[in-house]
């Protein structure tokens, strides 16, 4: 690793800092400057209140160099809040943080960086109108005024990306990237900035299985070299594979602390949800209904102006769940957009029950009874500043019974929203609080509640369980299967192979805008899908 | 009655705009100086360009018992027509205007065209390039009167002269006026004029050039540019104000249309003494002759 210009390997060995050579590395050095490595971190009795919510209720955690602590908990349990406190984004109302036995007040993220804390945030912290390189440079040069050497940053990124096998396009603008790609950029950013305490808040929610495995291996290696890691994930097999300790939160309180090795994935799930969780597995059906959704040779452009869909043909039958597997960024977003009318179809046809819907307006397609759970839940699936109840009626607000004689029927709407909130167990202060205040998992529940309750003929669900806790995932799977039983046509886009294998009747693999193959339930397995997702056919 | 008379003035711009508003303010101050501060009280409200604010000010002055309220702008006519009947004991005045719908409204009306005619003559006689530029604000009211008189004066003495008019579209934008003046100059004009408070911006531009002259109106604007302002038409509002006060004292609260002309000394033409060499006696003679004709009515300016 000699001559590696990446700052990363030097972090865990403070003594080696002097090995960074060359005048141009002076800047990086300044960035990496830290008083001492974090040998021990303790957060003690942390309390954080938000108006109406007690997000952290006297939480204490402890971590030593080389340990990997997994924090588990349902959506909204307080994990992110706790980490935001550690990173200086929030200030705790009570409690203290000790680093190497000394109390520190972490005022700002900048301060946290200086202490050697790095964080991968759950909601991406990327600037969409800057390139990947510029995003990383922002952190590396946060103290500089003039000096800015993007070529250098590019090189660092490429090195890290190679080392951790996280593919990125350094000169692409972030707004052009899929969620999966953004997730990789987030990770690369944290790795480039370097830290000896790394906080990862659901870093794998949008990674492929291979990338996840790679990341886990690398994280372990880092920990071995003395880096401490806090890892938040709802994917318990990852937790099991990676962490040395776990801490389970519920309603802002620590309900369990212990060693990972003492638990199996199942017992972890139980600890977390407070009950036994069993993800459903669909049984094969003897017969399916008619083709409800059909795509014939569909071509559509991506945001970069090139064809992201290159002749996609597929059908979904009534009573069937068709899965779309693939590494994100291979046309999934465009596929879902094209079907729902949010993206122009340049060539080809889309039919719903023999009626052509190609390039109809989104409203017309909604009227053809299409339900859509979009990838971007925060800004596309919901209107964050609108209340939960307003979001619940987003697609049927203008027809009876929500609107009668030209006026919205407040009572009906409230009852409806309350019913959905209850039915889908959305955790919220009330139906009039804004969607922005919900946790990601609960936002997803709002969307699912809305889309499923409209009783669509076709449901397109993009990454429906990304970021959901295991209890909620279980819940979503049951709902999707319920839709299948009700003879709906369901199209599920996901990278979770387990999820697809559990619930789909057929799985199509998308690669570079083309459907490589459609596998039936018994043909599909992790390795066959994995190869196809990597573009290997035959 | 020897008690104190209270006069209020409502003006669209400021008392130091070197133009329309200042002319009236100085007129009132002159009357006050003559009568003595103990005999006359003066209140001023500036920048009441819009009619709503002016309306409030006028009403407030009326309620406070001011006896003469001068709303110094044509745009206030409508307001006075409404307010005056409610305060029959108070005299109101506005100008430029003619209508005196209530018996307690004075309308005053400077004949801007008269002085403009004389200024036009000077311009026509002084120009070498035969190009004269006018920097106008908005093509309306006094500006039209001024321009008409000016063009006729210039043409009368110099049929070959090309009088070019350009408007800024605003009364107060003196930077735009300066720009128009520069454009005029670059396009060959060597004598310029213009009206309203924006024109001070244009006057200032003339300083940058040699052998360039400005003819000013409303006030004597020589002080702005002593080397280029040749002559000025000056409104003597002092007499107008006095007439109104006298008329009021005589029991007539209004109902009069007061004109300001050379005939009644409401207007005067002043020359820049420093530039006496530029205006020869020949020019002066011609101008004074025309002024005489304006006074005796033998010279009529076409206002169609």
């Amino acid at each position, binding site marked *: 690793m000699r001559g590696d210009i990446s700052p990363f390997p030097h972090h865990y060995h403070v003594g080696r800092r002097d090995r960074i050579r060359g005048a141009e590395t002076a800047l990086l050095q300044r960035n990496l400057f830290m008083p001492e490595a974090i040998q021990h971190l303790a957060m003690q009795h942390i309390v954080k209140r938000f108006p109406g919510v007690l997000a952290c209720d006297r939480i204490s955690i402890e971590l030593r160099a080389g340990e990997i602590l997994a924090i588990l908990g349902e959506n909204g349990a307080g994990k992110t809040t706790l980490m935001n406190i550690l990173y200086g984004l*929030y200030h705790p109302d009570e409690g203290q943080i000790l680093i190497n036995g000394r109390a520190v007040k972490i005022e700002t993220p900048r301060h946290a*960086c200086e202490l050697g804390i790095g964080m991968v945030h759950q909601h991406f912290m990327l600037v969409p*109108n800057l390139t990947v390189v510029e995003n990383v440079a922002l952190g590396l040069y946060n103290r500089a005024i*003039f000096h800015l050497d993007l070529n250098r940053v590019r090189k660092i990124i490429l090195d890290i990306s190679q080392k951790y096998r996280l593919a990125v396009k350094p000169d692409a603008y972030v707004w052009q990237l899929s969620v999966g790609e953004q997730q990789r950029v987030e990770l690369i950013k944290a790795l480039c900035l370097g830290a000896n305490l790394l906080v990862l808040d659901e870093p794998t929610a949008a990674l492929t299985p291979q990338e996840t495995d790679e990341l886990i291996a690398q994280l372990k290696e880092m920990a071995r070299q003395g880096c401490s890691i806090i890892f938040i994930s709802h994917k318990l097999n990852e937790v099991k594979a990676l962490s040395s300790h776990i801490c389970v939160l519920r309603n802002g309180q620590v309900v369990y602390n212990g060693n990972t090795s003492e638990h199996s994935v199942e017992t972890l799930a139980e600890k977390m949800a407070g009950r036994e969780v069993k993800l459903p597995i669909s049984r094969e059906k003897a017969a399916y209904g008619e083709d409800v959704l059909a795509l014939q040779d569909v071509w559509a452009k991506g945001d970069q102006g090139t064809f992201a869909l290159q002749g996609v043909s597929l059908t979904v039958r009534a009573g069937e769940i068709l899965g779309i597997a693939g590494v994100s960024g291979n046309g999934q977003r465009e596929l879902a957009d094209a079907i729902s009318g949010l993206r122009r179809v340049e060539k080809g046809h889309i039919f719903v029950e023999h009626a052509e819907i190609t390039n109809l307006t989104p409203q017309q397609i909604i009227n053809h009874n299409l339900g859509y759970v979009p990838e971007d839940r925060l800004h596309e699936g919901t209107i964050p500043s609108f209340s939960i109840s307003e979001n619940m009626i987003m697609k049927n607000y203008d027809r009876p019974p929500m609107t009668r004689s030209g006026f919205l029927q407040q009572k009906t709407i409230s009852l409806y929203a309350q019913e959905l909130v209850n039915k889908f167990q959305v955790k919220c202060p009330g139906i009039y609080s804004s969607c922005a205040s919900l946790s990601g998992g609960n936002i997803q529940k709002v969307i699912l509640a809305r889309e499923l309750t409209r009783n669509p003929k076709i449901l397109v669900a993009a990454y429906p369980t990304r970021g959901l806790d295991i209890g909620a995932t279980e819940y979503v799977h049951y709902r999707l299967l319920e839709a299948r039983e009700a003879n709906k046509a369901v199209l599920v886009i996901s990278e979770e192979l387990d999820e697809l294998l559990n619930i789909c009747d057929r799985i199509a693999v998308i690669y570079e805008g083309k459907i490589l193959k459609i596998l039936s339930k018994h043909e599909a397995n992790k390795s066959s899908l994995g190869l196809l997702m990597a573009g290997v056919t035959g | 009655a020897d008690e104190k008379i209270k006069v209020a003035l409502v003006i669209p711009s400021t008392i130091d705009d070197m133009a329309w508003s200042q002319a009236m303010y100085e007129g009132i101050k002159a009357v006050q100086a003559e009568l003595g501060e103990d005999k006359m009280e003066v209140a001023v409200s500036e920048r009441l360009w819009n009619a709503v604010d002016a309306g409030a000010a006028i009403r407030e002055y009326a309620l406070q018992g001011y006896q003469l309220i001068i709303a110094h702008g044509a745009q206030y006519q409508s307001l006075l027509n409404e307010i005056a009947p409610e305060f029959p004991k108070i005299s109101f005045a506005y100008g430029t205007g003619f209508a005196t719908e209530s018996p307690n409204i004075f309308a005053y009306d400077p004949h801007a065209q008269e002085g403009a005619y004389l200024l036009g003559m000077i311009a026509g006689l002084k120009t070498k390039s035969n190009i004269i530029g006018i920097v106008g604000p908005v*093509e309306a009211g006094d500006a039209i009167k001024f321009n008409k008189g000016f063009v006729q004066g210039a043409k009368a003495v110099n049929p070959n002269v090309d009088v070019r008019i350009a408007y800024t579209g605003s009364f107060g934008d003196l930077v735009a006026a300066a720009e128009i003046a520069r454009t005029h100059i670059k*396009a060959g004009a060597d004598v310029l004029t213009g009206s309203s408070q924006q024109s001070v911006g244009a006057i200032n531009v003339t300083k940058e050039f040699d052998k360039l002259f400005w003819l000013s109106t409303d006030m004597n604007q020589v002080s702005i540019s002593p080397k280029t302002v040749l002559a000025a038409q000056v409104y003597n509002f002092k007499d107008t104000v006095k007439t109104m006060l006298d008329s009021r004292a005589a029991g007539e609260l209004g109902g009069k249309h007061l004109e300001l002309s050379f005939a009644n000394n409401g207007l005067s033409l002043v020359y820049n003494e420093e530039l006496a060499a530029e205006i020869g006696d020949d020019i002066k003679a011609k101008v004074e002759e025309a002024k005489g004709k304006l006074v005796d009515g033998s010279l009529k300016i076409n206002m169609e």
Partner: protein
Amino acid sequence: MLLEAITVIISTAIPLSVSFILAGLGEMFNQRAGTFNLGVEGIMLLGAFTGFYTVHHLHSNVLGLLAAMAVGAVMGLLMAVSVITFKATQGIAGIGLYMVGWGISGTLFRIYVGGITSIEGITALHIPVLSTLPVVGAMFFQHDIVVYITFLLIPLAWYVLFKTAWGLKVRAIGTTPRAADTLGVSVERIRYQCLILGGMMAGLAGAYLSICQAHMFADNITAGRGFIAVALVYFGKWHPVGIMGGALLFSLAHSLQRFIQVYGINFPYEFAVVFPYVLVIIVLALSHKSKDAGPTALGTPYEREFRG
């Protein structure tokens, strides 16, 4: 004749564009950083007064320009305290600042000057040799020094915005302040810096009007130019070259309409006066293909603990 006309039009347009460019560049930094300042007009007025007054008393043009920038910086700071520290709604604060600037400049002018007074100010500079060139000499090389400085500021602004670390931070916090914050960029500090810089530029723009163009001060001398400058930032899509293009287009149209008026036209002059405004809108409409959505966080205060 045509050549002569073009010479006149271009040579008058260039100084005209200066105040728009100066104020526009300043506002560009504000907006890139996520705050928009409708108070530019007020800052320009106060800058115009300060510049005028300083030159009037100290007879130093350089001090005049510097004083205007200093006052502009203070006004920018006032805006920053209001919208950044106190998270005031930017639209209202801007209008408030506009009124403060107008009011104070008018008041001080009345108290300390009290009438039309002209100053020598900065006058056109005939660049040796170049200014004697036929045609181009008159068009481009007979302007005052501030004109040349302004046109040098355009590439400088471009460089600062796109090639320096500070510019990168500015662009980031105008779009996603939270992301920049997590990377250790101090959102508030940079927004403060931008507002102060923008204030300085607006102050300078105002001083240009009083010191270089009008050689005097009068109440409301800017006559809405500050608002035009803000509008031109949108025309220029937050890009220095775009802003320059917009300012030049607008100024050229103004020069052209004045030129046409001067040469006598037979239609209502209002059509001429309106021409530049119409032209700017139409040109922008015809060039609408640009992708840049601009600084998306424009107008929203940033507070770490707020969400939604």
